[in-house]
């Protein structure tokens, strides 16, 4: 993927000052936080906006007629508009607030899948999926008698599209569900190509953008997808809120997912009718303050600019791959820096990732060790687990240097 030169280069050191988490020492060391792909840290601006909402405008939304309820409703709906603008959705009613991207995908798998899948149908995912975009489809396929097919990976950790015709010959493809950026290898996937293929087959395309939305512009109209799932917590927002975007005509035709308060039009003993979009899919009290925080996070990221963030992450990935390449006995997974986001997965020969991560933690370096919720991918790589270092807009090169230093210690302890 070609990287366009951003208008202005991002100043990570200045950005870092916005994040209170870095104001502490960990085990007596400065914190090298290299686990942003699991969840990002939070800027003061976002935290303050949530506190402000709780302090001045908090009440339950929508039905209240008093001033606080009106303020809260305006704040929630204002946040929805910010999410709409972020993903360039044609209509704000297509933005459904959910807990996270996992819930967004479950919503589609249940509400669309249970009524549209059956024997002879095929759901296509990839070997690169997070469990969140794999397990729901495996389960709903099992419930409906549909089959699950996988797009395999090349040795470089990129999708191998050479066998698409063979997959199509296995049945009627109804759903193609892939991520845009792999949370495990950082691979940037050719989503537009897969959307076109899915539509040629008469299938819907579900895009897990949890790992791409924090780092690059996600434009649902340019992608052409039918559903897109994102999580706030990976993009400087709070945990507990995410969004599903879906096409109006699909969302209207779907059954609701969760049932209860707020999602109804009228409730009678004989029959309940569903509310309009997006309320039909938002049963119960909304994550109001979290949505406000999500909106503030979007403002924060947009002020810096997604082009600048994406370009900076490519820079960090290239630097990390270079520095890690200096170490003996280190296996790196995934594609070259120019075709990946700021995520680097690796293994140290003879040392289990848990031990690597533990020894790094003692030196103030936080990385993730494990299967990264990608057990099918780990099977493909022939390992139980990997180490993963991931970067974001507040990452500085010194943190990567601290990682490399730490890995020297790992080698010494296990020598």
């Amino acid at each position, binding site marked *: 993927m070609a990287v366009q030169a951003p208008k202005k280069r991002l100043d990570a050191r200045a950005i870092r000052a916005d994040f209170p988490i870095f104001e502490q020492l960990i*085990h007596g060391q400065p914190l090298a936080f290299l686990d942003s792909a699991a969840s990002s840290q939070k800027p003061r601006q976002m935290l303050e906006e949530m506190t402000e909402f709780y302090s001045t405008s908090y009440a339950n939304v929508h039905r209240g007629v008093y001033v606080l309820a009106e303020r809260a409703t305006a704040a929630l709906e204002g946040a929805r508009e910010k999410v709409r603008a972020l993903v360039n959705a044609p209509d704000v009613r297509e933005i459904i607030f959910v807990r996270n991207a996992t819930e967004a995908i479950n919503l589609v798998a249940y509400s669309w899948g249970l009524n549209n899948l059956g024997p002879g149908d095929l759901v296509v995912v990839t070997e690169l999926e997070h469990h969140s975009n794999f397990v729901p489809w495996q389960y709903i396929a099992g419930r409906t008698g549909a089959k699950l097919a996988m797009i395999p990976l090349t040795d470089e950790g990129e999708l191998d599209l050479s066998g698409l015709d063979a997959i199509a010959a296995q049945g009627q493809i109804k759903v193609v569900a892939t991520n845009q950026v792999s949370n495990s290898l950082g691979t940037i996937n050719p989503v537009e190509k897969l959307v076109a293929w899915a539509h040629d087959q008469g299938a819907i395309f579900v895009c897990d953008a949890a790992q791409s939305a924090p780092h690059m512009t996600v434009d649902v109209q340019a992608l052409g997808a039918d559903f897109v799932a994102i999580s706030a917590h990976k993009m400087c927002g709070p945990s507990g809120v995410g969004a599903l975007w879906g096409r109006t005509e699909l969302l209207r035709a779907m059954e609701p997912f969760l049932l209860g308060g707020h999602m109804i039009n009228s409730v009678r003993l004989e029959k309940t009718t569903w509310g309009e979009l997006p309320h039909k899919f938002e049963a119960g009290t909304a994550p109001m303050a979290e949505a406000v925080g999500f909106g503030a996070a979007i403002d924060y990221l947009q002020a810096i600019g997604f082009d600048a963030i994406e370009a900076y992450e490519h820079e960090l990935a290239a630097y990390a791959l270079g520095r890690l390449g200096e170490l003996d006995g280190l296996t790196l997974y995934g594609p070259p820096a120019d075709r990946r986001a700021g995520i680097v997965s690796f293994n140290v020969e003879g*040392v*289990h*990732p*848990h*031990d690597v991560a*533990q*020894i790094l933690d*003692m030196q103030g370096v936080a990385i993730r*060790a*494990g*299967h990264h919720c990608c*057990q099918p991918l*780990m099977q493909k790589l022939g390992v*139980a*687990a990997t180490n993963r270092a991931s970067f974001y807009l507040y990452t500085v090169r010194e943190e990567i240097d601290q990682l490399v230093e730490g890995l020297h*210690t790992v080698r010494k*302890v*296990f020598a």
Partner: protein
Amino acid sequence: MNEFDQMYREVILDHYKNPRGHGEMENADAEAEGQNPLCGDEVSIYVAFADDGETIDEVKFSGRGCAISQAATSMLTEMVRGRKAIDVARLDKDELLEEIGIPLTPVRLKCAMLGLTTLKVALHKAKGTPLPDGLAGFDELELS
């Protein structure tokens, strides 16, 4: 002594690099396979009983895992050899933790317990005794 020397003390690294009782066993009297769903680590445990059918004569283990899980399982095989199956099935985890002798965070405690939990499941299965509460579901969910 710094923190990683404490945790990765010589005896742990020695058991990790030279695991005792490492290998598989044909026709084991008791066996089970356990997984740590947090990290995907796997261990298989095999037990041979002595002629009395009660005493643990030999224990072997195979699988993959971190230094803590592999060393703890290696130490476990040394601890339980010659003891009665029924006693080992009820072994207090603190006995093993004392042997390991390093401070463990909750996540690493799971690593350290993988071998013992799997051994207990193997023994209960072989003896037909019900799995205790903490292990109920373990058999079904994580063991094949």
